[in-house]
């Protein structure tokens, strides 16, 4: 299925959950936070959070800033 990941189109397997996507992106264990369609998805719920066609997913991290 197609999702939007950090603003870019991406094809992923149909059955992937959020934990699977994070693993696919090699981000497991990284300091990140995730929202889907503008709603926060807590890390504790990654496993079992089903992804849907055209979901808009944002994965963020901390950077330097003032």
């Amino acid at each position: 299925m197609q999702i939007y990941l950090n603003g870019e189109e991406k094809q992923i397997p149909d059955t992937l959950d959020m934990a699977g996507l994070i693993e696919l992106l090699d981000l497991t264990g990284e300091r990140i936070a995730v929202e889907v369609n503008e709603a926060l998805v807590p890390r504790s719920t990654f496993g079992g959070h089903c992804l849907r066609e055209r979901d808009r997913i944002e994965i963020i991290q901390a950077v330097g800033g003032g």
Partner: protein
Amino acid sequence: MPNDTQKDSFSIAGHEFTSRLLVGTGKYKDMRETRQAIDASGAEIVTIAVRRTNIGQDQDQPNILEVLPPDEYTYLPNTAGCYDAKTAVRTCRLARELLDGHNLVKLEVLGDEKTLFPDVVQTLEAAETLIKDGFDVMVYTNDDPIMAKRLEETGCVAVMPLAAPIGSGLGIRNRLNIRTIVENAKVPILVDAGVGTASDAAVAMELGCDGVLMNTAIAAAQNPLLMASAMKKAIQAGREAYLAGRMPAKRFASASSPIEGLFF
């Protein structure tokens, strides 16, 4: 006096801090310079931003949270780049998740790309939502005493009026307003943005501010480490001068040596 100043801490959302200099972590040459400058500043509270992860790139680059570890610094995630309340609230919720439930945030909702002046209507709306959602909000605002009071009454834990536009280095444009904001406040008032050099920071403290938050003044100095050290001293000097109570300014001279006993 040194003993007195050591005890001169201030409190934000129930946490005591000794350093009244808060610093941003942006615009440095690299992570090494970031760490060294922040060490030289003596800051305990550091702002960070949240941005999209670069998927598949630069995973080996050190993260700001590793360079400035949470056992050494209090993080103040910001909402820089947000132009509406909704985006600012989303940003804070992401930051809280990222930092394992850390509730302290710096709210800034901007109104204009040229000035980066705050949109105070959106700022107030975001502050209300965030406070209801359990955040401790330190809020960036204009040097407007009425708005500063409104934000305090809304429940912000600190109010942070600008000295001048973000990154401008123009110093404190309206000292009278900053003084009025300080005099009216029951929460800490920190000057945030617009400081250019050490004397600007000292002036903010002499006006009675509880602290100063800056980034560009240090990061964009030709020698950021030396400027960080200068700012640390300026904040301390300005604070001590405020506590000492300055002499009244007079238009004409007043001799320092006695008139009596002149032998001519």
